[in-house]
């Protein structure tokens, strides 16, 4: 279907030459192959969806396309010509531009200034802005997308959706530079938009197709199928295939993203043992802070409670607050009947609370430090006699956990950053287990960026810990994960607990049930 669209619309360049083509792209990071021979074709005047789980290599691929990442091997062709993209500027000259997930506008400048920033052209004369010209330049871009934003409005006074329009308008400036139909990359453009704004964006994307090619990345598969002509699927850094969107179902896409291993008891539900505890281990009453208010929550020993919510629901902050890493303004938290001190992370550690942060590489581990030192970082007592470190004690302890969690590492003195993501995460989890005093585990996206096998191992470990009586709060990477793992699900919305539903094996809610409560 897309081929016909293309041959009609592509008048300026001979048809069938793809606007953008990627062949065998490879990118290694220490310990992980982010891209492992990716092939991708973007046709002219086509909206190509890019789907893949977290860690499948989507972001790395996009970054390679705009010159932010230098691939180790592979080729990129723009309109049939091989190119080397060393910077965003190089990419812009070739007509490739990206609207970033985190917006890249300068908040205290006007929309017009942001749009022409870096390519002022006639907008600047003798070192000074010519505002009439600036306005015209910006309006020209806005006209392309039919937007009615005032070019002279300060960016920070615009709504998020409007700012996104400014971003798109800004990216469209590259059309002037390359003198060719541009390739526009939209990275998770809908993740923080409301449904009405999403409709506007989709209208926009369809409009872009008239004169540009679009690469559209989103987590929401229904959206991808709705707006795209064709979807390419990545898994573990490889292209695993593509789907024509006409008549395709989200489930088909999902299957491709996860692969065959994802099917049978991925979440180890067979291991689940419902908790029989009467009294909750963790009770949270009226906990409030800047980003959430009046949160009530109970977690029993041996129970896994998933907290779900959209971006901005405040669930991450609740998690951090329970670990003493975020200031709170009100509320009472008790752990096994004793008041939990939320003033700092040290107090939480001492009370038997563990936290696995979402940003593993930045917050979860100290990359250049050894596996052993990372593992004993939080529970120094576990390797000490009195105030002194006993290296043999540490060695025995660490080796035991390396074996028990089957952590694949050359040895315990290897820097943790040299391990693969899954093994890194196991070390980070083991950090809370070596002390033998863990009571409450707060897991913030514990499987982010892990491949299927590693994920499954993390799930298994979570089950074992729960069966040993550890109370777990899980912020899952996806609704499926939350449903698969949790005994109970708390839905947060706008910083408040919106609802709560049981999620025992055999009586699981569907993602749709949750989504209704989330928005």
């Amino acid at each position, binding site marked *: 279907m897309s081929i016909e669209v293309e041959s009609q619309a592509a008048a300026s360049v001979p048809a069938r030459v793809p606007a953008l083509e990627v062949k065998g792209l490879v990118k290694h990071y220490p310990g992980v192959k982010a891209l492992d021979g990716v092939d991708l074709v973007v046709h002219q005047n086509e909206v190509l969806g890019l789907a893949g789980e977290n860690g499948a290599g989507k972001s790395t691929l996009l970054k390679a396309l705009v010159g932010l990442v230098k691939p180790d091997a592979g080729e990129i062709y723009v309109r049939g010509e091989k190119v080397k993209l060393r910077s965003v500027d190089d990419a812009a000259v070739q007509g490739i531009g990206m609207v970033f997930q985190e917006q890249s506008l300068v908040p205290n400048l006007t929309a017009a200034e942001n749009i022409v920033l870096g390519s002022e052209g006639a907008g600047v004369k003798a070192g000074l802005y010519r505002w009439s010209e600036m306005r015209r330049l910006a309006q020209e871009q806005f006209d392309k997308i039919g937007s009615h934003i005032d070019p002279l409005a300060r960016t920070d006074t615009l709504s998020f959706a409007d700012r996104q329009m400014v971003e798109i308008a800004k990216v469209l400036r590259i059309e002037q530079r390359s003198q060719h139909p541009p390739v526009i990359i939209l990275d998770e453009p809908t993740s923080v938009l409301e449904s009405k704004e999403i409709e506007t964006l989709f209208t926009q994307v369809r409009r872009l197709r008239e004169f540009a090619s679009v690469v559209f990345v989103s987590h929401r598969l229904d959206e991808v199928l709705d707006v795209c002509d064709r979807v390419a699927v990545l898994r573990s850094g490889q292209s*695993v295939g593509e789907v024509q969107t006409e008549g395709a179902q989200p489930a088909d896409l999902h299957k491709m993203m996860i692969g065959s291993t994802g099917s049978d008891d991925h979440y180890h539900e067979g291991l689940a043992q419902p908790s029989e505890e009467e009294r909750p281990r963790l009770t949270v009453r009226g906990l409030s802070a800047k980003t959430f208010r009046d949160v009530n929550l109970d977690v029993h020993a041996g129970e896994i409670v998933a907290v779900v919510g959209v971006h901005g629901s405040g669930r991450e902050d609740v998690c951090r607050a329970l670990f003493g890493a975020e200031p709170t303004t009100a509320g009472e938290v008790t752990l096994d009947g004793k008041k939990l001190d939320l003033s700092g992370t040290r107090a939480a550690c001492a009370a038997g609370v563990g936290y696995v942060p979402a940003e593993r590489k930045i917050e*979860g581990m100290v990359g250049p430090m050894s596996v052993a030192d990372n593992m004993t970082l939080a529970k120094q007592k576990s390797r000490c006699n009195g105030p002194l470190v006993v290296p043999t004690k540490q060695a025995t302890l660490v080796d035991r956990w390396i074996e028990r969690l089957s952590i694949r590492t050359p040895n315990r003195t290897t820097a943790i950053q040299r391990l693969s993501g899954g093994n890194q995460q196991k070390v980070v989890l083991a950090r809370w287990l070596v002390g033998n005093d863990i009571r409450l585990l707060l897991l913030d996206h514990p499987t982010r960026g892990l491949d299927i096998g590693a994920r499954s191992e993390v799930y298994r470990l979570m089950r074992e810990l729960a069966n040993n009586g550890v109370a777990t709060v899980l912020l899952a990477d996806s609704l499926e994960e939350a449903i698969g793992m949790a005994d109970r699900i708390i839905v947060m919305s706008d910083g408040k607990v919106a609802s709560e539903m049981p999620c025992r094996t055999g009586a699981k809610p569907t993602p749709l049930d949750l989504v209704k409560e989330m928005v």
Partner: protein
Amino acid sequence: MTSPVVARPAAEPTVVKGGPSLSARVTSFMPVIALVVLLAALTIADPGFFTQRSLTAASMTAAPLIVMAVGATLVVLCGGIDLSIAAMASLSTVFLALWLPSLGALSTPAVIAAAAAFGAVQGVLHVVLRIPSFIVTLGGMSVFSAIALVVSDAGTVPVTDNSTLNWLTLYLGGIVPMSVVVALLVVTGIWVIMRFTPIQSWITATGYSESAARLAGSPVDYVKIGAFCVSGACAGLAAVMLVSRNFSGNPSMADNLLLPAVAAIVVGGTAITGGHGSVWRSVAGALVVTLLRVGLPIVGVPSAWEQILYGAIIVAAVALTLDRSKVLIIK
């Protein structure tokens, strides 16, 4: 175009094998290599240099620098910088000279304690007010200099009775200056404490990734305040050594040691971004810097050129050792 499912198995998780590369290993031994090369070069330029007498003299010059550099190394390992050490040492020389007549032998511990307290105050300001250490200690540098000028009436304070400091000018076994012995004892002490307690882990974690250290329950704030405190105390001890040699205190006596001390740290290979490094590296760095200092006149370079050298080697050493993959934006 219609090939819906082309399934490939998920890739096996990889473990990257092997340690640091050869060039990384060589870079790691750079300070020792530089030390040997310098010694050889100076001996060739002036065969009289490699004698016990001149080496003893050189090591005595190095002692205060070693102590200062090692103290400040702790702050650098935590990811900060202490620019106030030289001014702190100058202030301490003034205090020492002023207190000697009344406190006698107690004035040495008193000065070190005072310097440690000043250091701790800077640490607290840095941690509590969340001001970059660079700014706090830049301010501290100015404040300490001013206090030194005020209490000394902007002049040299002579020391008439040097008896309680005299031991520092003696020689162990007739060869090794006591000040060098003290310096090495201090370094060993700091190293032993770090090595055999969790402090090493905490400092390293804080330096590499403060947020990761904090989220693993490390006492990041106390570690940083402690580092500033030790850095101050070391500057105080360096001041004691300077006074024992110069028989006076002066509000600018140690001011010219700031660049050499920072140079010693970076030449030693301690990462200016924190985490990587050790106090022994700074000892090697301090010796390199001292050799350059005493060696320049030997090869006929006027001493006015010294400052150019310090500036150049700081920049060059950081250029060689900085791990740019860790620093996203160079400010």
